[in-house]
């Protein structure tokens, strides 16, 4: 008797999506909403149950009852370790909150929206839980297709269509890169199961394995919006409805990084055993570039959702930098930051959705001063900004606290000051942007903001004009997210659980043993995580204050001496960066190719 639990997070939403699509014409809006929320809730519950089982013993599930014969794996497997089960619970929670947020008023595209959201949930769950490489690719494509379809919800203007087209083209190229990488690994090892591939590859690092690594990593970097593969993300966010943006920034983008972590740990662990330092420098280069580009462009944006999208780019770069430290503690810190960032970012997007619904615009220029009556919304917005800067009491600060321990374990303590600076830069730039928008909108301070083309694109409201009232249930999702982001700081048990789960991810022999025999071997006790919380809290407070100063120089630039107008200089025409973010799909594919060539050559030359 095998427990059906690992299959439920996929089977339930897929079945629900099929039913919703079949009954589409006959269900009222309320019935469709309720049914989809019920299915999402049941998926969330099954993911949480799976998590509780996985914490005791990783669940290995063989579809079709095809168990491995010797070392050859015949079927597809789900390996539900605590990280995977935890991420699938997070997916369930975010979809559940997003469906609550879009209750009744958001245009549902003739009731197609609900089925698409459930399919998206199933795809994310399958992507994290799977232990088979081609299965991961299938769920990657399912996630992407559901995302493209969801971006097609608003079709009244040409801008949304170009945004979704850019998104579709870049992510489809990503899928083909991943498939090519899988094909090369299959040719070498004759296997599609991740554990079997890892076993068969051993310590090979010939050009073929390195090139397969390049293809897989760059394909997933495109999904993770790492520079120079990030150009599609702001376009997609400008186009998608709020609840979909929450899922994109909250989880879908981060899953690209999760895939890189998983593949590096299971398949390429021994390949880079001798070249870890060199790999670190390559990943640091890409991550650092992402942080810089994302941070600066975030501050330069005036379209709220694009601004938040660039902040996602920046923070995902930060996650990559943390991962680049390498080692189980680094993975633990990255996962802590992933979860904390997911909650903070989702809360900000929900608040922007409230602003769009109530104030009928999402452009900083149009919103100037109009948000004065919305006090609760303002509070949530500013709290989200503090969360982005890893301010005190927010779980994002925990990542900063753990980073020095992680770099010590990896033996690069000298670099940790540089990493702290990058962390603070990311926090300051994104928080300053959020504060600036908040001061303009909710307080009406300062002069009218500088205009630019992207803000003029505007965004048609997602709801009908008659229903401008904001209901109590619109506040539940952002409130839940912010409260979780704060609460997680004070629950110590959660961090230790993540630390152990990350050690399990990092340990390739334990994973192989688990898949082939179903038994877990005891892990070496994780190194103590010297939590430098006071230091991190101080750095977080400094970051928030710096962000406030930067935002003020921008808001009150008319009253400042010319030399002090730093904010305005950053906001002004950044010709090169803006020209590169051109909206032309050919440009995006060009930079993608450049990134591929650079990453591939670097990997080959340095790691040979």
């Amino acid at each position: 008797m095998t427990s059906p639990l690992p299959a439920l997070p996929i089977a339930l939403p897929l079945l629900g999506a099929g039913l919703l699509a079949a009954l589409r014409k006959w269900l009222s809006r309320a019935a469709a909403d309720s049914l989809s929320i019920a299915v999402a809730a049941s998926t969330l519950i099954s993911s949480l149950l799976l998590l509780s089982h996985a914490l005791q013993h990783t669940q290995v599930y063989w579809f079709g009852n095809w168990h491995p014969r010797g070392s050859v794996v015949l079927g597809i497997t789900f390996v539900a370790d605590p990280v995977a089960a935890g991420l699938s619970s997070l997916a369930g929670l975010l979809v559940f909150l997003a469906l609550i947020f879009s209750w009744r008023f958001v245009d549902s595209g003739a009731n197609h929206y609900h089925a698409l959201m459930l399919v998206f949930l199933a795809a994310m769950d399958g992507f994290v839980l799977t232990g088979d490489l081609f299965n991961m690719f299938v769920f990657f494509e399912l996630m992407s297709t559901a995302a493209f379809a969801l971006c097609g919800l608003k079709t009244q203007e040409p801008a949304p269509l170009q945004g979704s087209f850019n998104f579709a083209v870049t992510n489809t190229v990503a899928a083909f890169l991943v498939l090519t990488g899988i094909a090369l690994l299959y040719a070498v090892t004759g296997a599609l199961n991740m554990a079997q591939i890892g076993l068969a590859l051993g310590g090979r690092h010939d050009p073929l394995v390195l090139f397969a690594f390049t293809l897989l990593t760059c394909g997933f970097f495109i999904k993770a919006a790492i520079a120079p593969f990030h150009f599609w993300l702001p376009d997609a966010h400008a186009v998608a409805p709020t609840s979909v943006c929450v899922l994109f920034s909250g989880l879908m983008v981060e899953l690209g990084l999760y895939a890189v972590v998983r593949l590096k740990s299971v398949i390429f662990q021994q390949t880079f055993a001798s070249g870890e330092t060199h790999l670190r420098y390559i990943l640091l280069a890409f991550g650092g570039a992402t942080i810089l580009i994302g941070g600066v462009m975030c501050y330069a944006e005036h379209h709220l959702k694009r601004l938040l999208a660039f902040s996602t780019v920046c923070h995902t770069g930060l996650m990559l930098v943390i991962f680049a430290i390498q080692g189980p503690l680094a993975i633990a810190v990255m996962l802590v930051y992933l979860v904390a960032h997911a909650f903070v970012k989702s809360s900000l997007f929900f608040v922007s959705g409230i602003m769009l619904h109530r104030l009928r615009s999402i452009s900083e220029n149009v919103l100037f001063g109009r948000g004065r009556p919305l006090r609760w919304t303002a509070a949530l917005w500013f709290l989200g900004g503090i969360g982005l800067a890893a301010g005190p009491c927010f779980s994002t600060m925990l990542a900063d606290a753990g980073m020095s321990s992680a770099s010590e374990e990896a033996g690069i303590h000298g670099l940790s000051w540089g990493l702290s600076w990058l962390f603070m830069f990311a926090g300051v730039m994104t928080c300053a942007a959020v504060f600036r928008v908040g001061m303009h909108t909710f307080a009406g301070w300062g002069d009218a903001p500088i205009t630019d083309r992207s803000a003029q694109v505007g965004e048609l409201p997602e709801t009908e004009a008659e229903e401008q009232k904001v209901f109590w249930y619109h506040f539940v999702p952002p409130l839940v997210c912010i409260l979780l982001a704060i609460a997680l700081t004070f629950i110590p048990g959660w961090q230790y659980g993540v630390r152990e789960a990350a050690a399990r991810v990092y340990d390739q022999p334990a994973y192989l043993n688990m898949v082939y025999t179903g038994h877990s071997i005891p892990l070496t006790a994780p190194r103590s995580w010297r939590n430098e919380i006071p230091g991190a809290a101080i750095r977080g407070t400094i970051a928030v204050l710096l962000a406030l100063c930067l935002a003020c120089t921008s808001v009150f630039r008319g009253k400042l001496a010319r030399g002090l107008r730093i904010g305005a200089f950053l906001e002004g025409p950044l010709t090169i960066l803006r020209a590169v973010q051109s909206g032309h799909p050919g440009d995006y594919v060009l930079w993608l190719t450049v990134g591929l060539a650079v990453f591939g050559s670097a990997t080959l030359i340095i790691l040979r």
Partner: protein
Amino acid sequence: MPHILHSLPYFVAAWLFFCGLYGLVTSRHLVHSVICLAILQSSTYVLLLAIGYRVGGAAPIFADIAPGVLTVDPVVQALMLTDVVVEAVVVALLLAMVVKAYEKSGCVSPSELRTMRG
């Protein structure tokens, strides 16, 4: 020379991938971009099928041959079989975006449709 012949199908796959990327970068028509994606996909098919080929191997259908005869690899064929049909519909989805974009703005060239500038 024999070494190159041994890898020729893989070079073909690489060339197809390059052509698809080139088409995407220099495209002046959105429908052309979508078809370039189909070319990229063909490159992956060529690679997969070349990997699974065995000289002198039979087709993996045992309806008229005895089981135990050496066949080519059925796994890669299974992998790409469903992909072909599925990608046809995904291409339909992308073309629907193009059709709608043309309907709303009257142009199908990426350069003219520049509404998403940074």
